[in-house]
């Protein structure tokens, strides 16, 4: 089970400004390549998709493969037209979805 994701979004921005968003979620990202001590492969369990939306519109998306490190970290940009809320979602192989959101005020 992944713990609460950590996100970093500026509280405010000026109109047309390109801002930087950072996210980190705790997750072991078991690659499916490793073997346990009896030599049996450990089944794959990773976050396979990350999305960031702003008021329902896609800002940034990533499909993750097992080559992404444990505790996936992302840094990306956004340029938003007005005040609103960023929503972040992480999709796990087992079907769980981890979510977070952050508001931003555009002056």
């Amino acid at each position, binding site marked *: 089970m992944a713990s609460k994701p950590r996100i970093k979004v500026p509280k405010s921005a000026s109109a047309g400004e*390109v*801002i930087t968003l950072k996210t980190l979620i705790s997750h072991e990202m078991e*690659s499916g*390549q490793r073997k346990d001590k009896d030599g049996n492969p450990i089944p794959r369990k990773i976050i396979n998709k990350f999305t960031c939306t*702003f008021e329902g*519109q*896609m*800002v*940034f*998306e*990533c*499909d*993750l*493969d*097992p*080559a*992404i*490190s*444990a505790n*996936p*970290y*992302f*840094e*990306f*940009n*956004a*340029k*938003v037209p007005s005040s609103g809320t960023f929503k972040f979602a992480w999709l796990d192989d087992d079907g769980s979805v981890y979510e977070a959101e952050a508001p931003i005020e555009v002056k």
Partner: protein
Amino acid sequence: MKLTRRNVLGLTAGAAAFAVAGARITPAFASAEETEKSIMDFTGGAAPAEGKITLTAPEIAENGNTVPVTVTVESTMSGDDMVESIILFADGNPNPAVATFRFSELSGAALATTRIRLAKTQNVVAVAKMKDGSVFMDKKQVKVTIGGCGG
């Protein structure tokens, strides 16, 4: 080349070494050709050009478990000058695919940073697909230090 005794000996030794190395690597690790093929699948057959895209990765990664990589593409991110997606490959991993990033006009800039796993010293390849169909590629070799032997 004349078949002298020395040549024959050299060739045999070379072939044997190659066969052993090949047999050891093929089942566990992806090859450059497989990466090449995946790139073609992504671009739809178009050969990627150089320029515009910049992949930043450390020259030497002490810990192959978390290697920070950043990829950026020069683009205004509006109209036709848009980056639709960027794909990352590592050609020496068991599976070359690493991640696919997708952008929109709200992205503001085509930039993504994440941390990746590298099994051994290898090339990391980033390919960007623009809205107008053109593709750009950048490649960096990352030396991975295994087990802290300082190499």
